[in-house]
């Protein structure tokens, strides 16, 4: 925009244009606003509203970054199912809501809201500018990683509902952040851990001061007064380190001893206890070795290792938080006088009538009283086909009302709903799962026994020489045998591996996942969204092209999901938007000259009927067509009969298209199988995994999909599985089979199974609840990351074993020196950091390069990733059966 326009004080040209009568508004190629007439150019180059947009567009274009526009335009369509401007958020002003989620700070109120759609630095900027958008908001602080904004506002000036609408208008749909107590507990735990590390670090650093001085004194001699000062200072620092941060290990060891399980804390605590006691006794006696420098560094390093590992892990409480988010937090209740009011979900009672509009989530379990719609229940059932919903039918909370407003009589709410029971199921399944005994902890038991035997042997061996020296050597052995490197090996390797995996789009919740996945077992795959794309698409078409065009025109009027999929797919060859919509005005371009003229549209539950270009067109399920054509009994032509049979064999949803009383075309719709599914399944099998398919879809669909992907006859394929069935199958397999049971899924209906399985893997695009319940979240589309994850865990375990061997070798060396009586604190102090550095170097070598490295490791593994497209989501999908037949 030229600067002169602004200085002249006249309104910018853009502001005056919307009212100007222009037959076709031209939109800015960068920002999408209307281009003012003065800025238009005559050629057919991209048009811009101002010089700034033109400059930015050219920068983006010159850098070859046009994908920016596609990404920008693609994203909101997927995410925004509900128009945020449509909602009043009146329930946020309800006193019950304030009491539960808000707290007063003087005249102000403070509240935490969870936002959806927080991605980047710009989001932080935008949300924290809320005080300018909504006057009365004092402060908005966003916690970016969790997407939680902490708001402080003046209730006298602005109600919370107004703030919520402001956030929604910015594109971030708010909901109350539940689980505040859990978050606080987790935060406090992390703070305590940090403080312990700080104390241990300060002690370790300062214990070095007297220690180095004393080592100097070993060679040059030392004044006894100075020496005793240094010894007492060492002891003071050492006792603090052992008693405060070191107490973690004593508690861990005590818990392990009480439950009689092996744990690495036991040998660590043993060494700390004996080293500490010997050091205190020797300091009081004034002679003998003290080891406080080594012990304090030991405590510090081990705590740092553990902190790195836990920092990578997420808190378990997020699971339930995400499940709560499934149900809306408010409902539109119908009052006796017919008006509606927004009430918080807690205020909803059985017997209430609620209205649920198209695109909204159903707030409670109930029964439809009036209205006719279709329900997407995939969240509970995994069934990808929408279910028609008519009066009298039961509906469940959390499912999505697709295309018309319905009124529902509430039967039960909150925890008694199906989704509420599912929440409890997930919580119980997660609790029941037995923790794995890590490799290092399994070694620990043997380690303690070996060290005690060796110490006893040393004591007996030296007893004949001198009882005092025998005791000294035995104590030295017990201290040097402390598995410092052993204790660092697992946390460091796991932290490195989790970090590497995260960079490849594999987010791993805990280190035990890697250990569980390192041996092949059984992997159960969910169908919808995991092996398939999870949406309805046209996979088969038999019929003439002009019927196709007419069908597309008619289906453009349909709100039914099947109809929409059909309209999108059929219209792909034509100019989809302008031609299919006859109400938009007179045809403007030559492609639209032949736009079919659609009239008399009638929408039914299982089909649609209308006049297109003077012909009567019927599109719908076979039973719908038969109902309308009953008088003429039009026979199905042979070709169509065969194609209908083919669709039925592949378990596609069959749609017939009839024109003027004759069936002219058959379309088959289904959920397209991912191109990488079959190769991934083969590759997994090559790695020794046994497979299985668990689907909420109809058994015929599940079987057909399994057959197309290439499942074997002996691999279980279970259809119509409810969330409870999936959980039971997982539990049955866990009891019956050896090896890890891995569940791969994406839906809420998989959440309980994901939580119960040894390892639950949620795939990209899945529901938030399944992500939270799973141990691993794959942030890239397709099944290739599963293979990578399996490879990574094998390598991680190999690296952990290498580290363990190295640290045991150091221990063996130290123990031999101690048994021979050659060990002194200086050697111990030098050996310990060297062994830790060795482990550090080994741990950082865990690597994950999909193709290049794996060939060196195992021959079968090298094939698998190479066969898959690197970015499966972007690659063209060449499966021949997926293309519509001409």
């Amino acid at each position, binding site marked *: 925009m030229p600067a002169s326009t602004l200085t002249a004080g006249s309104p910018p040209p853009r502001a005056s244009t919307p009212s100007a009568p222009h037959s076709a508004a031209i939109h800015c190629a960068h920002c999408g606003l209307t281009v003012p007439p003065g800025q238009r150019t005559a050629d057919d180059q991209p048009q811009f509203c101002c010089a700034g947009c033109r400059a930015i567009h050219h920068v983006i274009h010159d850098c070859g970054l046009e994908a920016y526009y596609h990404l920008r335009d693609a994203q909101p369509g997927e995410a925004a199912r509900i128009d945020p401007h449509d909602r009043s958020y009146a329930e946020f002003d309800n006193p019950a809501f304030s009491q539960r989620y808000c707290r007063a700070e003087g*005249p102000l109120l403070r509240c935490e809201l969870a936002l959806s759609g927080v991605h*980047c*630095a710009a989001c*932080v*900027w935008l949300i*924290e500018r809320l*005080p*300018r958008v909504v006057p*009365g908001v*004092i*402060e908005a602080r*966003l*916690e*970016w*990683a969790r997407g939680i904004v902490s708001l402080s506002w*003046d209730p*006298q*000036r602005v109600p919370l509902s107004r703030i919520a609408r402001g956030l929604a208008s910015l594109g971030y749909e708010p909901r109350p952040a539940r689980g505040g107590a859990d978050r606080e507990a987790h*935060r406090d735990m*992390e*703070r305590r851990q*940090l*403080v312990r590390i*700080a*104390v241990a670090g*300060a002690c370790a*650093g*300062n214990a070095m*001061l*007297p220690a180095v*001085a004393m080592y100097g004194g070993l060679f040059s001699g030392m*004044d006894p007064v*100075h020496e005793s*000062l*240094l010894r007492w*200072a060492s002891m003071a*620092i050492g006792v603090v380190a052992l008693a405060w941060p070191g107490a973690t290990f004593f508690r861990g060891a005590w818990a392990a001893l009480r439950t009689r399980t092996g744990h690495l804390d036991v040998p660590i605590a043993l060494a700390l206890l004996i080293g500490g006691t010997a050091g205190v006794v020797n300091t009081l006696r004034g002679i003998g070795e003290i080891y406080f420098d080594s012990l304090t560094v030991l405590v510090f390093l081990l705590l740092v290792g553990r902190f790195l590992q836990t920092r990578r892990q997420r808190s378990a409480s997020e699971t339930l938080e995400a499940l709560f988010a499934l149900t809306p937090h408010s409902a539109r209740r119908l009052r006796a006088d017919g008006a509606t009011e927004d009430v918080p979900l807690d205020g909803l009672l059985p017997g209430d009538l609620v209205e649920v509009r198209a695109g909204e989530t159903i707030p409670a379990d109930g029964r439809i009283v009036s209205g006719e719609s279709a329900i997407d229940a995939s969240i509970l059932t995994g069934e990808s086909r929408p279910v028609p919903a008519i009066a009298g039918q039961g509906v469940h909370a959390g499912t999505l009302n697709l295309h018309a407003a319905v009124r529902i009589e509430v039967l039960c709410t909150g925890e008694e709903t199906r989704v509420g029971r599912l929440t409890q199921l997930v919580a119980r399944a997660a609790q029941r799962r037995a923790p794995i005994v890590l490799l290092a902890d399994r070694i620990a038991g043997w380690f303690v026994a070996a060290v005690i035997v060796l110490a006893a042997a040393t004591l007996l061996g030296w007893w004949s020489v001198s009882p005092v020296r025998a005791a000294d050597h035995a104590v030295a052995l017990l201290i040097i045998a402390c598995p410092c490197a052993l204790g660092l090996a697992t946390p460091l390797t796991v932290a490195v591996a989790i970090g590497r995996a995260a960079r490849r789009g594999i987010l791993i919740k805990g280190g035990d996942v890697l250990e569980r996945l390192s041996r092949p077992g059984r992997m159960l795959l969910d169908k919808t969204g995991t092996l398939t794309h999870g949406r309805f698409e046209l996979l088969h078409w038999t019929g003439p092209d002009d019927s196709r065009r007419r069908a597309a025109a008619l289906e453009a009027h349909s709100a039914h999901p099947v109809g929409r999929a059909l309209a999108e797919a059929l219209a792909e060859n034509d100019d989809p938007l302008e031609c299919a919509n006859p109400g938009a005005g007179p045809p403007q371009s030559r492609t639209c000259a032949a736009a079919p003229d659609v009239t008399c549209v009638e929408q039914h539950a299982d089909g649609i009927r209308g006049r297109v270009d003077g012909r009567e067109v019927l599109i719908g399920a076979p039973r719908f067509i038969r109902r309308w054509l009953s008088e003429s009994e039009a026979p199905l032509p042979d070709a169509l009969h065969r194609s209908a049979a083919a669709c039925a064999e592949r378990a596609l949803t069959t749609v017939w298209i009839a024109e003027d009383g004759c069936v002219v075309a058959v379309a088959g719709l289904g959920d397209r199988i991912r191109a990488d599914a079959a190769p991934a399944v083969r590759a997994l099998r090559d790695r020794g995994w046994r497979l299985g398919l668990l689907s909420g879809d109809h058994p015929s669909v599940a079987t057909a999909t399994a057959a197309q992907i290439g499942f074997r006859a002996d691999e279980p394929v279970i259809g119509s599985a409810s969330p409870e069935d999936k959980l039971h199958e997982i539990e049955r397999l866990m009891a019956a089979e050896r090896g890890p049971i891995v569940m791969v899924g994406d839906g809420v209906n998989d959440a309980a199974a994901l939580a119960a399985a040894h390892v639950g893997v949620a795939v990209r695009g899945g529901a938030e609840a399944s992500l939270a319940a799973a141990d691993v979240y794959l942030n890239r589309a397709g099944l290739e990351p599963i293979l990578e994850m399996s490879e990574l865990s094998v390598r991680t375990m190999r690296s952990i074993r290498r580290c363990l061997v190295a640290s045991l070798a150091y221990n063996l060396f130290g123990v031999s020196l101690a048994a021979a009586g050659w060990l002194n604190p200086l050697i111990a102090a030098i050996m310990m950091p060297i062994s830790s550095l060795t482990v550090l170097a080994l741990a950082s070598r865990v690597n994950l390069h999909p193709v290049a490295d794996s060939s060196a490791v195992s021959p079968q593994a090298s094939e698998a990733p190479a066969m898959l497209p690197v970015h499966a989501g972007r690659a063209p999908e060449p499966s021949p059966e997926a293309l519509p037949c001409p």
Partner: protein
Amino acid sequence: MSVIFIALPVAIGLALSALLVFIWATRAGQFDDLDTPPLRMLHDATARDAAPHDRTPPAG
């Protein structure tokens, strides 16, 4: 060498004060969220024009 009687307590005292500051910072929540502040830093300079006290409403 008698300077050690002063040097050692001073060294430990320095470490202790650093430790206390760190513990205070931890308890004040300085290390709770390590993701957002680096992002906030990118645009903090422009936020100065609207200082918090300007936006505080009149009491009452």
